């Protein structure tokens, strides 16, 4: 046992502050014997009194009461010019759809209420800086990549990154270095980034500028973020975290470590997923040692100059709600998910996985607010169960893939709805289950990056029969579900081995996605 063992006591509340005690075990070595001393340390998380304010929202309220006559955009003029829109969205909503102006600040260069709201968000997420984003988490991810890399720079990525990351590479011209994730052979999903593989990549490409980690994954799998950050910083690399599915990690100490807590440099947080804000609103968080001026320039490269106040105020209000009530809310979400898991597992045939998957490396931790269920043992694919739930039971879940379904549980859910979901799954098993068939298990072929995604994107391409493409550079994505990790990405060398594997996977009934020619007879390659 080396170093410091970190244990968190329950977060407690005293008026005004949220704080918690951490017990740190400090080893005192004396010849062969080791004495451990427990030091209790008080950590103040945030000032609750301050978090009760919502500057953007309050400014909008003040503005509404002033009854200012609008001779500016938007042209619907508080909805008067578009009565049908008012009928659909309501008077209150359209009257808040206003332009940037002095009392409401400006997202492109915040100096007053937006800046104040961003400071409160930074404090609530324990980040050095926070930016309100109105172009979805995609815009936050792109800002991270563009901040860390310029043309020709290398960036270390897990092979199963979100499309928005590759698109960012197309924009900036950086070169991807992929780390292949392990795939769980039973449930068929891609797992987290293993420390040993990150280390290998760093040793092989010591000039890489940054490491991007997808944490937690859609399925709730977490990597060893603290160790990855430590390792990356030792090699002067930035750590960027795609935390699209992890807003809640910041508000409950019984969940996996968040990016900022782990010391990451930047994190893209989908407030609109578990945070409760409006679709398309998001947060970009920065750690201590990032040049904020530069990040602001990068954001403004692609950000709208007419940011929606509906989105901005929803971020502000959601931040306040999370700061004041997030802990209780996510405790409830966690309990609902755990309850659903145990109920679904007791039906038999389904496997709702949880913490038991944790293995110390490729599954370093598991986000228990997620409810992912492996369905193949009742003879149905995740997609089939997904369709049955919607068509026959009026239940819409987040997605189904070949082997799994994912039901999204959030602060808006009620116990009686959980009962419906469990009841429906039981009924599906009773009425629709079939003999099981074996899943095709993917193995990985390490890609050879022959051109950057940017070069491949802009290059002239031609469609060539797939058998004749060996030795050519691929111009598009080829993905195989499961487990949804690209076999080929734009700019990668096609080999005989890859062609064989692709055709084999297709023959085995995997769903092949990405290529322009859906039948996969032909592939787009660089001329």
């Amino acid at each position: 046992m080396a170093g410091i063992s970190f244990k968190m006591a329950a977060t407690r509340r005293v008026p005004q502050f949220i704080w918690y005690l951490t017990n740190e075990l400090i080893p005192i070595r004396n010849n062969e014997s080791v004495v451990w001393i427990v030091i209790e340390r008080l950590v103040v998380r945030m000032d609750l009194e301050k978090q009760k304010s919502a500057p953007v929202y309050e400014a909008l309220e003040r503005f509404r009461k002033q009854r200012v006559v609008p001779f500016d955009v938007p042209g619907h003029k508080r909805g008067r010019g578009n009565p049908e829109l008012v009928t659909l969205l309501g008077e209150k909503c359209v009257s808040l759809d206003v332009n940037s102006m002095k009392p409401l600040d400006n997202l492109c260069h915040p100096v007053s209420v937006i800046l104040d709201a961003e400071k409160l968000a930074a404090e609530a997420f324990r980040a050095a800086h926070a930016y309100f984003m109105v172009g979805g988490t995609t815009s936050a991810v792109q800002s991270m990549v563009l901040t860390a890399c310029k043309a020709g720079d290398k960036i270390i990525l897990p092979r199963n990154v979100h499309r928005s990351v590759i698109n960012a590479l197309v924009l900036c011209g950086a070169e991807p270095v992929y780390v292949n994730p392990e795939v769980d052979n039973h449930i068929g999903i891609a797992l987290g980034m293993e420390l040993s593989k990150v280390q290998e990549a760093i040793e092989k490409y010591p000039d890489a500028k940054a490491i991007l980690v997808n944490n937690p994954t859609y399925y709730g799998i977490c990597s060893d973020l603290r160790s990855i950050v430590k390792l990356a910083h030792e090699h002067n690399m930035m750590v960027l975290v795609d935390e699209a599915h992890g807003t809640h990690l910041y508000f409950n100490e019984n969940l996996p470590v968040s990016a900022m807590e782990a010391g990451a440099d930047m994190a893209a947080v989908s407030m609109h997923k578990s945070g409760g804000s409006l679709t398309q609103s998001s947060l970009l968080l920065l750690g201590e040692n990032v040049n904020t001026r530069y990040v602001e320039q990068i954001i403004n490269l692609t950000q709208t100059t007419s940011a929606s106040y509906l989105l901005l105020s929803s971020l502000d209000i959601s931040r306040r709600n999370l700061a004041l009530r997030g802990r209780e809310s996510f405790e409830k979400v966690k309990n609902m998910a755990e309850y659903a898991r145990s109920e679904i597992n007791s039906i038999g045939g389904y496997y709702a996985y949880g913490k038991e998957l944790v293995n110390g490396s490729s599954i370093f931790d598991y986000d228990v607010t997620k409810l992912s269920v492996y369905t193949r043992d009742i003879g149905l694919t995740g997609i089939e169960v997904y369709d049955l739930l919607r068509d026959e039971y009026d239940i819409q879940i987040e997605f189904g893939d070949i082997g799994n379904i994912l039901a999204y549980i959030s602060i808006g859910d009620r116990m009686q709805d959980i009962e419906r979901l469990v009841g429906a799954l039981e009924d599906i098993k009773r009425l629709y289950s079939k003999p099981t068939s074996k899943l095709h298990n993917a193995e990985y072929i390490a890609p050879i990056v022959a051109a950057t995604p940017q070069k491949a994107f802009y290059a002239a391409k031609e469609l060539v029969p797939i058998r004749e493409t060996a030795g050519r550079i691929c111009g598009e994505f080829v993905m195989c579900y499961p487990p949804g990790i690209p076999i080929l990405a734009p700019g990668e060398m096609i080999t005989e081995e890859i062609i064989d594997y692709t055709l084999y996977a297709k023959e085995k009934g995997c769903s092949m996605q990405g290529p322009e020619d859906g039948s996969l007879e032909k592939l787009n390659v660089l001329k």
Partner: protein
Amino acid sequence: MEFWFSEMHTDNVKMSIRVDKQLFSATSDYQKIDVFDSAEFGKFLTSDGSVIFSEKDEFTYDEMIVHVPMAVHPHVRKVLVIGGGDGGVARELSHYDEIEEIDVVEPDEMFVNVCREFFPDNACGLDDPRVRLHNRDGLRFLRGKTDEYDLIINDSTDPLGHTAGLFTKEFYGSCYKALKEDGIMVYQHGSPFFDEDEETCRAMHKKAFKSFPVSRVYQAHIPTCPSGYWLFGFASKKYHPIKDLDAKRWNDRGIKTWYYTTNLHMGAFMLPKYVEDLLREEESKK
């Protein structure tokens, strides 16, 4: 003093009852419960602003949901009542000596307590020694129950409110599984009259029709329900509601009723044309 309780039956239709006084108001984990006293309907209870039952017309509902299946099924030993926390259904069931067990599953404890306090004539049904009251979610209670009940009565309130889960395909599926091979399930079927409610009514029949070999609909006149016209569903694995009606057997029991008779039983399944049409339409859908 003008003091009226009003309930919107549609956006454009309002039913109002002059209230003498309000006796109770509180919000439980599931619903807002109010109890009023009135000259015309006596005491009545509302959930989230909708009338659940009144002293004046409660007998129609409770008799129709209990005696119809009881006059058909030849040997009911074990009954499950989902909802039914007021005790009215249990009270009607207690007339039958051959019943051995009655499980009443009502998640809302406050609802039961309010009924015990203000509607003792209903709640007395819960004191029958054969009744076991379970404070649990209905779907949760049903899960894992197989081949156990002769009769399931879905006495939950509102297909759109907090009991929505009890009007779904998974609920009918769970009931099917929990019933014995000749079991019967009866349930509230809503009212088909107003456009707003028609869709729900159709969807319910479609689900039951798909889940059970026999699925018929019967009707009753209940003044406090939207349009005053209410339907019930009769879903069964074996018995037909009219062909298997044993009128003599039922009449020999000498149960005192105010609404139900075995003649009315036959008539209740004879539906208006527009109702028959919409049910047939659902049956013909794939």
